[in-house]
């Protein structure tokens, strides 16, 4: 599994994040994992956070309204409005932070996801473009919190396995 490609670049001047990752699965499975609510909620939030999707209507003009739930129960809401969908190939959405009543905090960021498969390995290319540097920094900051929590969690697991 460690041979699966993972590319991650942040281009601050263009306010864009580029992410590329290979998955050891056929494209239809990966597509489902990105576009079906029950599956998304299983992996979207780095543990110990939870992803809780309240509404998901995967069609152009539809939306996903979901929360990242922190271990203390705090909810961080976001809304993703689908702007284009080419089945099993590409979709894009406008992502915005929101309050619990779904009022978006604009501007948001434009996400573009492209899927391709070769020999049973599926490649997902993600491009996240932010309208403002401040928005980008907020996204990174939230990612920092989540990444930090994930790091602490991994450390907890490691300590537990060492103490056995």
């Amino acid at each position, binding site marked *: 599994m460690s041979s699966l490609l993972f590319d991650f670049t942040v281009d601050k001047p263009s306010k864009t994040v580029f992410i590329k990752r290979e998955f050891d*699965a056929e494209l239809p499975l990966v597509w489902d994992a990105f576009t079906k609510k029950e599956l998304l909620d299983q*992996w979207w939030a780095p543990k110990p956070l939870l992803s809780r999707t309240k509404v998901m209507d995967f069609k152009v003009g539809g939306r996903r309204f979901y929360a990242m739930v922190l271990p203390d129960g705090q909810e961080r809401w976001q809304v993703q409005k689908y702007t284009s969908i080419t089945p099993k190939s590409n979709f894009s959405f406008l992502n915005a932070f929101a309050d619990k009543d779904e009022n978006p905090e604009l501007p948001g960021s434009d996400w573009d996801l492209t899927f391709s498969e070769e020999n049973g390995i599926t490649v997902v290319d993600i491009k996240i473009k932010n309208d403002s540097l401040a928005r980008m920094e907020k996204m*990174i900051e939230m990612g920092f919190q989540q*990444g*930090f929590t994930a*790091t602490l969690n991994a450390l907890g697991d490691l300590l537990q396995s060492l103490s056995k």
Partner: protein
Amino acid sequence: MRRDVFQAIADPTRRAIITLIAIQAMTPNAIADNFNTTRQSVSKHLRILTECEVVKQEQQGREIYYSLEISKMKEIDKWIQPFRKMWETRFNQLDNVLATMKKQRK
């Protein structure tokens, strides 16, 4: 104009210069030999890199050598690392979900 580490890496020529001098300190002429561009253009990029404080100059005899300011470059890493980590964790979780889906289909 903004002069920070992100401005430094915003340009492909500057990224290439950074990659070159990360290996060893080099004179402006030696750096310019690696590009199909004018020496003036390379000097301009070196000046920006210096202003962004990602490279340092050292006089050795009659020559000036440019080398990378490693601690500055770490700023980029620090800034990106946790965000990258979040995606790494997220994707590892997705690997598990996909493995389960594959089993269920069989």
